[in-house]
């Protein structure tokens, strides 16, 4: 188990390093002078802009800038916003709350719904119920959240007046966006759970358990679900990338002031350090989650616990 962690960590670090490098390269390839962008509004003279360039270290060779960038990154410094002059890491921390709560709530809804639907479809494989669930699953992953979100607002906020349509804060603000985003992610979870369950259902020990006269439900929960659970954890963790992206759009629909809105504003103002900071933050968050999922997988699956991760 320890060796498994030790083997996984450098791999994850390598991917994060590559991602950070790609983000650096993309920013270097963007046309436009950052010093000019910073001082454009204040009407600075060319010599002031040149001084700013020197201060920011933009006159140094690219390799020097790159090494400095990585060094700062290691210390958790993501640079400063061109627009506000504030540290990017501080801006991200301020706005991460609504996004993380939305992503986690949506993950809960999506997992509960997805696992339940996948379970039912696999247990009743080939019947009309299976067809219905499979149809619902493919529909859920085809519906844009920016459409289902608007329809939900139309029905539950404007029509019935049950829930607020915008803003963040208490649980009532979270219900609609989390449900909309959760339903959107439940489709792929249901499909994968169903496929994995059907695979397990064909295993000899399931037939053996049935042969011993155990009830269908008992076999399903005690044997099949238990065997299918570890790989399901990985699948659910992989949903986090989708949820972070989906949260951006969902936040726009429900006017939540989270990371997505920050990303959107920074792109519209071409505040590239903030864009880069959010991207690197998201990549790190994603890597940490999938690392955690692998460890949970190893912990749940006794075979991996003994042999280490493949």
């Amino acid at each position: 188990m320890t060796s498994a962690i030790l083997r996984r960590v450098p791999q994850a670090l390598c991917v994060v390093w590559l991602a950070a490098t790609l983000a650096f390269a993309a920013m270097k390839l963007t046309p436009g002078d950052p010093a000019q962008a910073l001082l454009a509004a204040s009407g600075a003279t060319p010599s002031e802009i040149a001084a700013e360039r020197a201060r920011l270290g933009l006159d140094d060779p690219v390799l020097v800038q790159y090494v400095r960038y990585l060094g700062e990154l290691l210390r958790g410094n993501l640079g400063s916003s061109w627009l506000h002059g504030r540290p990017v890491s501080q801006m991200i921390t301020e706005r991460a709350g609504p996004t993380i709560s939305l992503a986690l709530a949506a993950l809960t809804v999506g997992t509960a719904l997805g696992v339940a639907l996948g379970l039912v479809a696999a247990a009743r494989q080939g019947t009309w119920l299976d067809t219905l669930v499979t149809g619902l699953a493919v529909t859920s992953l085809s519906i844009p959240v920016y459409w289902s979100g608007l329809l939900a607002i139309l029905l539950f906020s404007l029509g019935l007046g049950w829930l607020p349509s915008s803003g963040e804060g208490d649980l009532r603000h979270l219900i609609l966006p989390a449900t909309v985003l959760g339903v959107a992610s439940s489709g792929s979870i249901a499909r994968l759970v169903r496929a994995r369950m059907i695979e397990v259902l064909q295993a000899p020990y399931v037939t053996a358990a049935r042969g011993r006269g155990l009830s269908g439900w008992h076999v399903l929960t005690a044997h099949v679900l238990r065997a299918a659970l570890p790989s399901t954890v990985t699948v659910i963790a992989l949903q986090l990338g989708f949820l972070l992206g989906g949260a951006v759009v969902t936040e726009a629909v429900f006017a939540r002031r989270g990371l997505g809105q920050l990303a959107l504003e920074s792109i519209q103002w071409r505040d590239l350090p903030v864009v880069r900071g959010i991207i690197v933050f998201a990549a790190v968050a994603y890597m940490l989650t999938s690392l955690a999922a692998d460890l949970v997988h190893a912990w749940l699956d006794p075979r991996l616990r003994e042999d280490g991760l493949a």
Partner: protein
Amino acid sequence: MIRWHPNARRPLARQPLTLLGLAWLLVVGLITVLVPALTHTSPMATDPARTLEPPSADHPLGTDALGRDVLTRLAWGARWTLQMGLLGLTLSVGLGLPIGLVAGAFGGWVDTLLMRLMDALLAFPGLLLAMALIAVLGSGLAPVAVAVGFTASPAYARVARSAAREVRSETYVQASRAVGAGPGRILWRHILPNASPPLLAFAAVQLGWILLNGAALNFLGLGVPPGTPEWGAMLAEGRGFLRDAPWASAFPGLALTMTVLAANLVGDGVQELMRPR
């Protein structure tokens, strides 16, 4: 050239949903070609006297906040949306297919290098990466297609890699190598045709993803200029009038959902064709 499973469990004729999806994609494709002949008003023609009108005989799907006919704009929107989708898909397959095939067919350090690079790209949440690319590329339909297509390509490379790995040790590939065929010829003549069914299925699924996320960028205002009859942009414009004129945003969303669903159904159906009975 494509090799299906000779004894598919569910042939195309027995997949009503796949056929329905194909039919819908065909209809949308036809609309994009025929739209100038089908519509008699311009999608940009405003009518200040008839804004936010509910569906009627004159305007079967109602009018928007500027009095423009929603149905006409929807039909023109098919052209914008599908153009973006096909451009994005071309880029995704154009980048992902060669990378994945080479990685899968050659293996070794080439495989490790290419796939680690793809992993790094996959570590970014898809839509966020596309948004960041827009920050670099600027806004417009082509940047949206490029951003979404590029973001989709690592996933395509992965599927192409596993498809190539599955056939690379087949006897016909070894036989071809034994008679002296070069790597290019083996890739093109043997690995690609035999690996193509899953590649085709995944291309359909990716078309759905590209449409969904490209329209999302337009919805967020990062893509096409305001007023463009593109489905995502129409949804965003109609959103301000949700209470008074839900049709202005509901119908573009419905059209988009049905097209994405059609692409996904076709993708699933093609996968079914490969499963042995």
